[in-house]
């Protein structure tokens, strides 16, 4: 790999100390048995079908047109959206605008290895997936020949990053007052054997990607959904799953996306309410100032009159 002269680099042979810890190379079975305790609860105490609590807010980045922040315990995602700008290397007339999506991990986002600054294939794949998921919801025909930038930064990653990124982008777009067909929310599921982990953590996702030697189901599915129009904006699966399982998970995911929706709805309505209040306050202040100005004017005019007299 070529050396990056624009940053400070550490020694080339440096490796994370976690490589030398006792639990670096655990066997599949060990990892598997750790996921669920005797009572059928997950490592973090959740039930199998319980999503993590989600903290949502908009207006996170003061310099962006619209922005959002989503936190699902260990997964923290920031998204900001900027106004349309011209497409640099475009020479053909188009009737629709473009979405430019970039997903990046913080160098310290992953537990295991430090993330390189150079975009890796996972970041590129996430960017493509994000673009696919938010594409159907943005009214692209309104900004033909221009592009809207959507940047997602994953501060900390503990599973379901894509789902969090999509939901955050949907909120940030609405926050930026980009005309949209619908609010988009996403949710993901990890499947290991006959167990379905809703809103998986990094460990659960990691294990779901490894195939056990037996021919059992394993995989991760992420779905993005337009809640008002009841359409599926994106569906991506990886792993190896049979058809019954996929169909079952599709239903579950639809419900999960539906569950996220009210949170986004509430946030957006909250901002409109605040906005109305703010507007009122401003208009009152404005009126007060106007009155002051009028007084001053009268005073001043009378002084002219007096002077002339």
């Amino acid at each position, binding site marked *: 790999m070529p050396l990056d002269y624009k940053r*400070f680099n550490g020694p080339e042979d440096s*490796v994370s*100390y976690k490589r030398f810890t006792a639990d670096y190379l655990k066997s599949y079975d060990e990892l598997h048995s750790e996921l669920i305790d005797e009572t059928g609860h997950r490592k973090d105490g959740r039930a199998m079908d319980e999503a993590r609590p989600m903290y949502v807010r908009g207006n996170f*980045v003061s310099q*962006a047109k619209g922005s959002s922040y989503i936190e699902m315990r260990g997964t923290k995602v920031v998204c900001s959206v900027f106004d349309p700008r011209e497409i640099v290397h475009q020479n053909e007339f188009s009737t629709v605008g473009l979405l430019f999506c970039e997903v990046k991990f913080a160098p*310290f986002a992953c537990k295991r290895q430090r993330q390189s600054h150079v975009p890796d294939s996972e970041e590129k794949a996430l960017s493509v997936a994000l673009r696919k998921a938010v594409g159907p919801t943005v009214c692209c025909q309104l900004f033909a020949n221009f592009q809207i930038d959507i940047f997602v930064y994953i501060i900390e990653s503990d599973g379901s990053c894509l789902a969090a990124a999509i939901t955050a982008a949907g909120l940030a777009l609405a926050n930026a007052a980009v005309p949209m067909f619908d609010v988009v929310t996403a949710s993901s599921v990890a499947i290991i054997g006959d167990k379905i982990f809703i809103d998986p953590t990094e460990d659960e996702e990691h294990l779901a990607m490894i195939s056990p030697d037996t021919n059992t189901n394993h995989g991760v599915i992420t779905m993005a959904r337009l809640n008002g129009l009841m359409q599926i904006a994106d569906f991506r699966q990886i792993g190896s799953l049979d058809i019954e399982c996929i169909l079952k998970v599709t239903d579950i995911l639809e419900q999960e996306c539906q569950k996220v929706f009210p949170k986004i709805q509430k946030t957006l309505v909250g901002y409109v309410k605040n906005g109305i209040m703010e507007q009122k306050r401003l208009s009152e202040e404005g009126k007060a100032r106007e009155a002051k100005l009028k007084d001053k004017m009268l005073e001043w005019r009378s002084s002219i009159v007096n002077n002339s007299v």
Partner: protein
Amino acid sequence: MTEVYKHIHPSKYFNDYINQDVRPDGRDFDQQRDVIININGITSADASAIVKCGNTTVVCGIKLELARPKAEEPDIGFLISNVELLPLCSSKFRPGPPSDYAQVISNIVSDIVINSKCVDLKDLCVVTDKLAWVIYCDLVCLDYDGSIVDACIIALITSLKTLSLPTVTYDNETEEVKVDTGVKIPLQVHGLPVATSFGIYHKLPRNIILADPSAYEEEMCGGIGANLIVCWNKGLFCGIQKFGGCNLSTEDEKRTISLAKQRCKLVEQVIETCIKNGEVK
């Protein structure tokens, strides 16, 4: 309407405020923005801090790695700090490799930390010529609203102060490395550098010094970034840098240095209380 005016005629808009002895966000010329610190909010990092100075938000995450020390300096470890100005934090920055400005900021922050000698690099060596710690400090700006260096230094120092190193055993014969995360030793941090940014606004008859400028103020003072950065470390004056902008008179220079000294004490207190509270938790 104000916004339109600000957009169309920015210099006049700004001038109007300055003439009334007030800044557009309502602060006095010397007034700093509030500092908020949150420590160890990111569990995937070995140590972390989130710092907000007004709107400016910087996250620092530290990742520990092990490597063989350099042959010419076999008994010292590595402290690598980088500042990342993301495209999402402001429309000024584009995706791709770091811009010139980002590299300058990265350099300033790294220089301040290395020069302050707050971390003795010899402490980072595990076995001479064989194994040493590499501390990667990644500073990420999430919201760029001026005085980025101040926030970066606070975030970096706070997270260094909360960092502890796991114990490492190195077998000289088999060259096998074992790390025990159960026993951790806090990293020794000597001193506490604090940087304070100023903007110098050109105005007749006297230039005006703006402490802790916002992004808009920095722009009005000429170009992106602060004009003047003053650095104090535990009551010791340890650096001053001036970049472009207007000329600085001697009395202004003295005033900024004393302002920075006051601020240094305040910030120290904030960091100390924050770490204490964190430990109590």
